[in-house]
């Protein structure tokens, strides 16, 4: 008998004893870990895995360990639906987190009403919670709220005539529609409306037209990926002096790196995740935000993204609901979830109700300005 065999035997024994004999709470997730929406699903999956590990190390919830089952749907709605069915029927989970994208979320959503399993989506669009579906919740704010936040800031500056330059990708197109829809109520007038393709490398013609529009006072760029960085560079290249707004779609340090000095002075609505050190002592989000960033950095050696934050909130909302329900009955968890009130996450402070399954208001968005290549809160 060699040393190796002894070692193997010992570790096998260790595994056996470590494996919890008590009942497990199974939580499922279908996320776009790879594929075109991997920038969403990758940090989301990492966040969930980290949180489950932490939780189990601390003794689990209600004395039970939690098992997380993650499937990679690659943002494909068909796969998402298959995985959701598998999670519910074969894995017998008590709740599902996921749907990194709106498409995947909407494909899965009808299943949860059929099987009466609570579901927390991490996707943005307003259609997920409007109209409200009994078993479907979501954590990110909507693009409609981003428009309202931006317009509120514009009117607070005493301006009203706005030019839009939007990406033609799903995110840009959807946010453009929402901005057009809420403009009237917000007291702003859209005087220019231009678009660009996601991989375009020069937007100076569109910006030239916007800058030449009569009476224009501010410019908003709903978009995602590299497009907004190109727009920002072109904006500076043309020397346009109007107040410039980006969306929460580019709220990351990556954007500042790509847009460079041209980004200084622009504003965007974002979660407090970008300004952990600027949150005041009495800010309810201070603790979750700083805790999440520290834990994520310690485990993965990189700063967490806004999207990982959505998963962080979804997991904590679910834990909180399971704790309060005191049972693992899916319907009881759902009821507890809907009764969530004033729970501070990293994205915002959540209060669900039968009419509101997102539970955030405009205060969840902080208006940030890029100054000297860093983020600063606008008061």
């Amino acid at each position, binding site marked *: 008998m060699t040393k190796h065999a002894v070692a193997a035997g010992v570790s096998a024994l260790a595994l056996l004893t470590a494996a919890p004999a008590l009942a497990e709470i199974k939580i499922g997730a279908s996320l776009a870990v790879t594929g075109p929406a*991997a*920038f969403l699903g990758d940090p989301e999956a990492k966040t969930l895995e980290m949180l489950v590990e932490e939780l189990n190390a601390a003794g689990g919830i209600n004395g039970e360990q939690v098992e997380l089952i993650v499937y990679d749907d690659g943002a494909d709605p068909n796969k998402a639906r298959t995985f959701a069915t598998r999670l519910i029927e074969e894995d017998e989970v008590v709740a599902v987190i996921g749907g990194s994208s709106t498409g995947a979320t909407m494909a899965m959503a009808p299943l949860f009403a059929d099987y009466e399993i609570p579901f927390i989506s991490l996707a943005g669009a307003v259609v997920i919670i409007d109209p409200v579906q009994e078993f479907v919740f979501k954590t990110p704010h909507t693009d409609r709220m981003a428009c309202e936040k931006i317009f509120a800031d514009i009117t607070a500056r005493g301006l009203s005539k706005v030019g839009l330059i939007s990406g*033609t990708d799903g995110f840009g197109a959807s946010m453009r529609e929402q901005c057009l829809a809420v403009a009237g109520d917000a007291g702003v007038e859209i005087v220019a409306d*231009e*678009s*660009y*393709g996601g*991989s*375009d*490398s*020069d937007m*100076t*013609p*569109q910006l*030239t*037209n916007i800058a*030449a529009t009569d009476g224009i006072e501010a410019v908003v760029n709903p978009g995602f*990926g*590299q497009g907004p*960085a*190109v727009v920002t*560079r072109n904006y*500076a*290249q*043309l*020397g346009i002096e109007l107040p410039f707004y980006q969306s929460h779609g580019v709220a990351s340090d*990556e954007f500042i790196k*790509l847009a*460079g*000095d*041209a980004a200084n002075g622009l504003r965007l609505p974002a979660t407090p995740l970008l300004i952990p050190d600027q949150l005041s002592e009495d800010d309810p989000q201070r603790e979750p935000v700083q805790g999440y960033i520290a834990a994520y950095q310690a485990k993965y050696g990189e700063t967490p993204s806004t999207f990982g934050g959505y998963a962080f909130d979804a997991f904590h909302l679910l834990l909180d609901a399971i704790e309060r329900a005191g049972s693992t009955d899916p319907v009881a968890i759902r009821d507890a979830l809907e009764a969530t009130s004033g729970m501070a996450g990293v994205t915002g402070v959540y209060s669900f109700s039968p009419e509101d399954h997102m539970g955030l208001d405009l205060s969840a968005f902080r208006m940030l300005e890029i100054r000297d290549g860093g983020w600063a809160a606008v008061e």
Partner: protein
Amino acid sequence: MSELLQFIISGVTVGAIYAAIALGFTLIYNATGVVNFAQGEFVVIGGMTAAALIGAGVPVPLAALLAVLAGTLAGVLLYRLAIKPARQAPLVSLIIITIGASIFIRGAMQTLFDKQIHRYDGFSGDAPLRFGGATILPQSLWIIAGSVAVFGFLAWFLNRTRAGRGIRATASNRLAAALVGINTGRAMNLSFAISAGIGALAGVLATPVTFTSYDAGVLMALKGFSATMLGGVGSPLGALAGGLLIGLIEATTAGYVSSDYKDAAAFVVILAVLFVRPQGLFGAKITERV
């Protein structure tokens, strides 16, 4: 008036990028008749390598040189490992092989580099130059100069050098070329090397303006290929003219009509041209003798 000037500058900037990519298609097509769908990936290899090296503190000229060499190497490997073993296969199979190669290279770059978007500063800074009420980035001048230089090189190489004429002879009839003593294998190898090098150079020059990421090659190749078709496949002058024309159509449509129709306008023009001149603006008319 300054608006028109700005639109033209925008069109020329974007057009020069398309042209630089389109020029890469010409040589491989000239040598083998293959439209190389991995051409966009060579552009990305150039851009990503340069970004990684510059990020690591390598001086820009050296990083650019190494990036072009990396692209060239990738081209040679593509030929040696994928095309050469299958060179008896019909043309369509070879084209499909290049599609496979492009998917493979994309995957390899995703693991070798990362999934982030990259850029580095323009070679002569990022402060825009102003004239006549319009602005242009100094990097755009680099791209334009690069495209024109590559065009000049190709025109000289294909018409004035023994190796270049060998490449054209290989394309026109591989068997006949071999019979008159041309090393057709070497000619094809050379065409892949130079094409890939040109692609990588386009990536190195364009990245400060267009940015780059592991999957940026697909759309770049699409636009470059459109430019090639418009100008005439295999003609360096056609690639240059086609690229600039598409850039100008896009910019003026976005400026004067609507930015929503920018891409559509370019493709309508391409279709219209191909109806009248299927060989493209500057393509040689091919008559097959039976």
